[in-house]
Each structure stands twice: as structure tokens, then as C-alpha cells.
């Protein structure tokens, strides 16, 4: 009953702590509009968003890629403004921008426009992003953070609940808790700078320069890091106390640790925060306690049977219900992110999510085996059972660490639900470096992206967007690829429809580097086609 009350408190607590902005910032309009041809130069470039954003940079590039204006721009409420001091000469231009929303999520993109007559075809390269470095560094740091949080929670809970256990066991748990607290503090601090670097997309080696850190302080990551540090200190304090105070502090820390995760990230922003934050909490709390319990349980297998009985019985009492809550809440969160079953199979996010589910299922299988077979045998005092139990718990622990690593990678990716909005997130969190061009033919525009635009396996994505395509459902989209230097021509491939007006080719066709020509054929009716011819450089 007390637990229910505590959970209800956390529900409201989670809702109060959660950030005020509930969604990714979405670009709603621009002046000039994308692919608009203006009679004369505009006085300013204006990007309009659905919520308040802060400009990181806005660059105006001419057709040769030279910076004409920017990168500093003004943020006024939901608008970002780049004033132009001198009128632009006739020609095609690209506005490349990166802004940061109140939920700490960087959003980037590009807009094409022309001054003077509209070009027959828009071909403008959008500068590629700095790379995966920040994503990898952030995901690694986050994984270490999650793992340390889980270990600290488990160790301090077992220390608080198992007061009668022997001294060596307590020393071991104390060591786990202490080390984890230190790791939590370090990773929480690093996260601020890493988040700033992710936003700025500066080279990764500049992590210890001032810029990423001052940028990071502007994001919600700062709040999350401070909260995590507070939780770590709470847990550390609990290990030093005794009796009732120890139990209260450990329990409070264990409840607060998963709540800190709900302070930032895309899961929280996917819906009404009073639903998503408690849902995430309901998933993270039992998952974290479960994971955290593995190390103390493993240590307990070395104890004499009578002493080991208590940790195991406490864990067993809560394990089944906890696992059920974690799986159900996790399933609900996952469903909200993937949106469609198709999204699970057609996106990287979905693939990772499936991997996580498979790993959790494997861990669940092991846990069931432990509970039904090994634990009773060990508690009966059968000689070989504790060793076997310790080994399977060790495997479970390794799987748990992998699950947390996958989870932290998921946290850095843009889920299918955001892609379904049709928002082009060229942001550091999800886009690979690649090549993106816009093209217009017969009044219909298309965005063609090749990722990673390096020799080997590539994904070619064609997005048919804009007014010209309203109410038009193409019969098929195919491409003919050619690379003159490599003597490749007429390589014809059909494209797969992956979402409304988004078509994709995923394969090894761009096997050699060089200048490729991609000819896109959109068959609108049997007798009408729209074609685009796009040169795309493929790096070695």
C-alpha cells in the first residue's frame, strides 16, 4: 500500500518535474518558401517554428556553396530571423540552419530559393554534418550512466534491506555502490558538454573547449545531470547511515533514479507529458531495480545458505510483478515511438528496438530458469548449485549491460513517429553524413538523399514533397544509375515505398566512388512521368 502511495506521488512528481515543451520543434513555414523564386531580393530570411527555438546557426549559401550571410541569427519567439544587409544578386540560394528546441533537441534543415527567374532544376548541396563522433560519444556516456545508476540503486537497496548479511558481502555492495556513484557523477557532468557538442556539431576533439559546455548548459541535459548527481549523493549517503534513515534514503534514491531519466529525451516529448513521463518511469523503475539486483544477487551466491536466503526471497517476491510492469510499460512506450508495426522493421530505430526486445526475452528466459530450478536447489544447499547460479546471473548481468547500451543508443535516435511527421531532421542525433539535393521538374519538387554517400552500401531516399504533389499518388518510382568513369550505365532499380511520398533504395549499387548520375522516374499515370536528373558525388 505504501508502495502504491509512493508511486502515485512519483506520478505527480514526474509530471511536475517534466519539461514544459512537449514536442520536437517543427519548421512550419519559411520566408522565402522552399523552392520559391522571388522577383527581387528579400530583406531577411525568416524561419517559423511551432514553438520557441534558439538559433545555433543560420547560413545563407549561394549556388557555389559560399557563405553569403550568417551564421548568427536572431530568435524572436517562434521565429528565427537572418537579416540581409545587402540585396542578393540573381541566382539560387540555400539556407542551411540548425536550431535547438526547448526540449534540448537540435533540429536542422535546409531551404532552397532563388532570386530572379526560377532555375530549371534546383541542384544545391546541403553541407553534410560533422559526423557520428558526438552520437557515439554521447551514447557511450549515456550507457555508462544508465549502468552506473542501475548498479548504485541495486547495491544501496540490498544494503538497506539486508542488514543482517555478513561483513564481506556488505563491503562488496558498498564498493559497487561507491564506484557507481563516482561514475554517475562523472557521466552526468560529461553529458552536459557532450549534449552541447551534439548541438554545435563542432569536431569531437573540441569537447573540452568552452563552447560545447556553455551550449550544453542551455539544454535540458543540465537539469537531468543535476538531478542524477543529487540522486547519486542520496544513494551514497544512504550507504553511510543505518537503520530507518538508511532504508528511507535508499528507497527515495531508488525511486528518484528512474525519474531523472524522464527529464529529457524524445520518449517524454512524444505525447502528453502526464502520460509519457509516468509510463517511462513505470518502465525504468522495475527495469533498473531488476538490473541493479543482479550484482548483489551474484555476490550473495557466495554467502552461506541461511544468509543468502533473504536477498533471494526479497528479490523473488517482487521479481515477477516488477518484470510484468516493466514489459507492459516498455511495450506501451515502444508502441508510441514506433507508431506502426512496419516502423519496427523498416527503420534503424525499429531494428534496435527489436534487438532490445530479443535481449530482454533472453534475460527473462535465464531469470525463469534461475528462479524455478537453480535458486531452490541452491537454497536447499546442493553443492554445485551456487556456482551455476552465480554463472547464469553473470550472463544475465552481461545481457543487462547490453540492453542498457542498446537503450542509450535508442535514446539518441529519432523514432519513426518523428519521421512520420515528415520533418526532415538533419540533426546530430539521427542523420548520417550524406548528400542531400533538392530538384524541381514540371513544377513538382523532390528531395533526393544518399546516405552515407560513400562507396559501398547506401540508402537512396526520394521524398516527393510540396504543393505539386498534392493529391498525386505515383504509380511507381524507379531510378537509373550511371557512373561514367566506372563504365556503369543504365543500372535500373525500382524504389520501395517506405512512407507516404517517401521512396527508398537500400543496396550495394553505389559500389564505386566517383560522380554518379541518378535519373529518377516518377510514373504518375501510365502516360505521364516526372523525371529528375541529379549528379551525386560518392566518396571513397
Amino acid at each position, binding site marked *: 500500500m505504501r508502495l502504491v502511495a509512493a508511486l502515485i506521488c512519483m506520478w505527480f512528481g514526474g509530471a511536475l518535474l517534466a519539461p514544459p515543451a512537449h514536442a520536437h520543434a517543427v519548421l512550419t513555414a519559411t520566408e522565402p518558401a522552399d523552392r520559391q523564386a522571388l522577383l527581387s531580393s528579400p530583406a531577411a530570411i525568416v524561419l517559423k517554428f511551432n514553438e520557441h527555438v534558439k538559433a545555433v546557426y543560420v547560413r545563407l549559401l549561394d549556388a557555389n556553396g559560399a557563405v553569403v550571410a550568417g551564421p548568427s541569427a536572431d530568435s524572436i519567439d517562434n521565429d528565427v530571423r537572418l537579416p540581409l544587409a545587402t540585396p542578393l544578386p540573381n541566382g539560387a540560394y540555400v539556407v542551411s540552419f540548425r536550431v535547438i528546441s526547448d526540449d534540448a533537441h537540435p533540429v536542422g534543415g535546409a531551404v532552397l530559393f532563388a532570386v530572379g527567374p526560377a532555375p530549371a532544376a534546383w541542384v544545391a548541396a546541403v553541407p553534410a554534418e560533422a559526423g557520428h563522433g558526438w552520437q557515439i560519444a554521447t551514447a557511450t556516456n549515456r550507457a555508462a550512466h544508465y549502468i552506473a545508476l542501475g548498479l548504485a540503486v541495486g547495491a544501496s537497496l540490498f544494503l538497506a534491506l539486508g542488514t543482517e548479511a555478513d561483513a564481506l558481502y556488505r563491503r562488496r555492495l558498498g564498493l559497487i555502490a561507491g564506484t557507481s556513484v563516482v561514475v554517475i557523477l562523472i557521466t552526468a557532468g560529461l553529458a552536459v558538454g557532450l549534449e552541447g557538442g551534439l548541438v554545435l556539431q563542432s569536431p569531437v576533439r573540441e569537447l573540452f573547449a568552452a563552447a560545447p559546455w556553455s551550449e550544453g548548459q542551455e539544454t535540458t541535459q543540465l537539469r537531468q545531470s543535476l538531478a542524477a548527481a543529487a540522486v547519486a549523493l542520496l544513494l551514497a549517503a544512504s550507504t553511510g547511515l543505518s537503520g530507518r534513515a538508511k532504508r528511507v534514503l535508499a528507497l527515495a534514491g531508488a525511486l528518484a533514479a528512474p525519474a531523472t531519466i524522464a527529464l529529457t529525451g524524445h520518449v517524454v516529448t512524444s505525447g502528453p507529458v502526464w502520460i509519457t513521463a509516468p509510463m517511462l518511469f513505470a518502465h525504468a523503475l522495475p527495469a533498473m531495480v531488476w538490473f541493479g539486483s543482479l550484482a548483489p544477487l551474484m555476490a550473495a551466491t557466495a554467502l552461506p545458505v541461511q544468509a543468502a536466503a533473504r536477498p533471494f526471497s526479497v528479490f523473488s517476491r517482487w521479481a515477477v510483478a516488477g518484470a510484468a510492469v516493466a514489459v507492459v510499460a516498455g511495450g506501451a512506450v515502444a508502441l508510441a515511438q514506433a507508431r506502426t508495426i512496419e516502423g519496427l522493421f523498416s527503420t534503424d530505430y525499429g531494428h534496435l528496438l527489436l534487438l532490445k526486445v530479443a535481449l530482454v526475452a533472453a534475460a527473462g528466459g535465464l531469470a525463469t530458469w534461475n528462479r524455478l530450478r537453480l535458486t531452490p536447489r541452491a537454497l536447499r544447499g546442493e553443492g554445485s548449485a551456487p556456482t551455476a547460479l552465480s554463472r547464469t546471473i553473470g550472463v544475465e548481468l552481461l545481457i543487462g549491460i547490453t540492453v542498457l547500451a542498446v537503450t542509450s543508443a535508442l535514446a539518441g535516435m529519432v523514432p519513426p513517429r518523428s519521421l512520420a511527421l515528415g520533418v526532415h531532421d538533419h540533426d546530430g542525433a539521427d542523420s548520417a553524413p550524406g548528400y542531400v539535393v533538392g530538384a524541381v521538374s514540371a513544377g513538382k519538387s523532390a528531395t533526393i538523399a544518399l546516405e552515407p554517400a560513400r562507396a559501398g552500401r547506401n540508402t537512396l531516399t526520394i521524398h516527393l514533397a510540396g504543393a505539386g504533389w498534392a493529391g498525386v499518388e505515383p504509380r511507381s518510382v524507379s531510378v537509373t544509375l550511371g557512373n561514367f568513369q566506372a563504365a556503369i550505365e543504365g543500372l535500373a532499380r525500382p524504389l520501395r515505398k517506405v512512407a507516404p511520398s517517401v521512396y527508398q533504395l537500400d543496396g550495394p549499387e553505389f559500389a564505386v566512388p566517383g560522380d554518379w548520375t541518378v535519373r529518377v522516374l516518377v510514373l504518375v499515370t*501510365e*502516360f505521364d512521368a516526372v523525371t529528375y536528373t541529379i549528379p551525386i558525388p560518392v566518396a571513397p
Partner: protein
Amino acid sequence: MSRSVLIPAAIAAAFGATAVPSWAHVTLETKEAVVSSTYKAVFRVPHGCGAAATTAIRVRFPDGTLSPKPMPHAGWTLTIQEGTLAKPITAGNDTVTKGVTEIAWTGGKLADNEYDEFVIQLTTPAEAGTALFPLVQECEGGKANRWILAPGVAAQSGPNGEEIDAAPSLKLNPKP
């Protein structure tokens, strides 16, 4: 020029000479006409889709075309599809919104190594310029060459190696 460039270039040249099965398109026999005049459109079909035999020819008309009448073809089923025109035809107070939208000869078999002509008599549009007759050539095995692109647009290959290329075009000259 280095060797690494020369060899692929030579291969490319060889491919260019041999890989493309035929340069011949489906074209009109008479490529010029006068606006608003009676014109006999003769569509010349020089080959199939790759090696597959042609089984159907379907034609659409440039906006402003009046009363197209196809010549029946022994062994082929003729279909004249009528409906609302993509663009109404107006001459003074006279507006035509309905008419023939597509003519098709189906159910025949024209082997790749045979030649045939399909004929439609029509009244040409009133506007001078280039008039296009988008044409779909259906073949055995579900293939279809599409002669539908505007002049100057680069040819494409369909997913099954079909040709997607220029539509038969007619130059319409003003009245002398």
C-alpha cells in the same frame, strides 16, 4: 590520362556500342503538320520490349486533338475510350469537354523481329508548337515500354529493363 581511367572508358565505349538493343523508338511517320488540319498519324513500331513480343499499343493525344479515329487491325481488339478531356477545347462560343481520351489495340502479337504500323486519323490542335502522343507499348511477360517523355528528357530504364523514352512528337506549323 591514366590507365585506370582509360580501361573503364574503353569498356564504356564498348558498352555504348553494343549494350543498347536498339536505338529505334516508336515514332510518327509524318513528323510535321498544319494546325487544325486532318492528319493521318502512323505510329511505327520497330521492335518489342527487349526480345518480348508486343501485345498492346495504347495512345493518348495532345490537348486540343479533335475526333481521332483509329484504323482497325486484323488480329487486334480495338478499344476507343471516351471521357472528359484533360483540357476542354474551345473555338469561339463552342466548347468541347468530352471526347476520345485513349485508343488501344490489344490482344495481338507482334514479334520483336517484325514491324507494324498503327494508324489514327485526327484533326490536329489549333495551337502551333510541338504536340506529343504519349504511347505505352505492352509486351509479353508484363513488360511495357513507355514512350511518354518530353523531347530532350534523358531516357530511363524501367525496373525490368524496359525503355522509358521520348513520346512520338509532331511539329505543328501555323496555317500558311
